[in-house]
């Protein structure tokens, strides 16, 4: 019951939830396809993150505005059509702004439609909350997604081509670890990050167990 009362309050947590505690990629394992497919360089990762964030915020706003008008039987179809509209906008904008980037990301721009993060947000947050709160939450999720993409993209670019955002970092003697920019690298780097977070989590749990008195987390 208390949940309904708190509904309208926008706290810092509304925003930060998506960045850390419920990070869409590392914690909820959503939106895996673009995460792995376009993160072969930091620039691509950033572009994808920004595009997804835009669609996320815009569709959250629209879904939230119409949340009382959409009949629950056809809600998923309605959300998808709303999302597809914004993705079409992004697709054409990207084509107009930067051709090389558009070609690098290819069909994955259009595939933002089927990114589970966006539909998940529409269903879990925007359909129940006021526009502003949904947008703040969506912005947090978008930021979390972008950060996750960047952390994958920069590691892969660094190892696979020895550069970051296209700038070579190592000397000419650097032997690129080519497999990292190829598909297997995506799986392995994400696996590595997940191992790291899991390790952090177990270590924290051990500490909590160790300090028996101060168990509140």
């Amino acid at each position: 019951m208390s949940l309904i009362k708190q509904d309208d309050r926008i706290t810092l947590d509304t925003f930060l939830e998506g960045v850390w505690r419920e990070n869409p990629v590392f914690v909820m394992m959503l939106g895996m396809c673009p995460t792995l497919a376009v993160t072969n360089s930091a620039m691509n990762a950033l572009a994808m993150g920004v595009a997804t964030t835009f669609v996320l915020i815009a569709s959250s706003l629209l879904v939230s505005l119409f949340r009382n008008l959409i009949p629950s039987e056809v809600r998923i179809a309605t959300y998808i059509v709303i999302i597809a509209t914004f993705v079409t906008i992004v697709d054409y904008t990207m084509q107009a702004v930067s051709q090389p980037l558009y070609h690098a990301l290819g069909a994955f721009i259009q595939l933002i439609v089927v990114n589970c993060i966006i539909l998940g947000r529409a269903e879990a947050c925007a359909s129940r909350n006021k526009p502003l709160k949904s947008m703040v939450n969506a912005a947090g999720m978008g930021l979390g997604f972008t950060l996750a993409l960047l952390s994958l993209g920069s590691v892969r670019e660094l190892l696979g081509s020895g550069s970051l955002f296209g700038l070579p970092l190592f000397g000419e003697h650097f032997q690129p670890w080519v497999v990292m920019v190829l598909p297997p690298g995506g799986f392995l780097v994400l696996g590595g990050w997940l191992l790291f977070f899991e390790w952090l989590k177990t270590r924290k749990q051990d500490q909590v167990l160790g300090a028996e008195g101060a168990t509140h987390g």
Partner: protein
Amino acid sequence: MGNADSITFIFFNAFLANNFVLAMFLGLCPFLGVSGKLNTALPMGLATSFVMLVSSVCAYFLNELLVAFGIEYLRLISYIVVIASAVQLVEMTLKKLSPTLFRALGIYLPLITTNCAILGLALFQTFKEYNFMQSLAYALGAGAGFILALLLMAGLRERLELAKLPSVTQGAALSLILGGLLSLAFMGFAGLGAE
């Protein structure tokens, strides 16, 4: 083979060399989610492949229609609506024919709609301007490749349940690293044909 437009080439290209899951990262959610057991992996693969086939055929004719009217900007929206209806069809059929299986697949069945492999397939065949037979071969190859990847993964994960692993590696991280190794193995097929 040799001729990049031939139907066998397209089939094997989508099946092995450019496997949708392991080389193009499409359809990863079910790949990581439903690949725990062999007896759910196979029906999931079959259901997805069926939807792929149906939506590929629909997308082909739909695209002809869109081009004829000069309204290509509606492509994305109309594709996704067609796919959603196809999934609904499969869901109803499966519910009638095998309620147990329907329950085993759970949330992943309606989620086929948001499976990027299916929309990806429809979009790629449009970009590559395949004709009807080529689209069909592409859809069959992609579907077979999806089933293959799902089965390989499920087999590996069933075996690993019996293995002793460090506690940190259990769960998603393990699946991803397995996926990475499978993907490495599939790179061996790259010589069969490039994009």
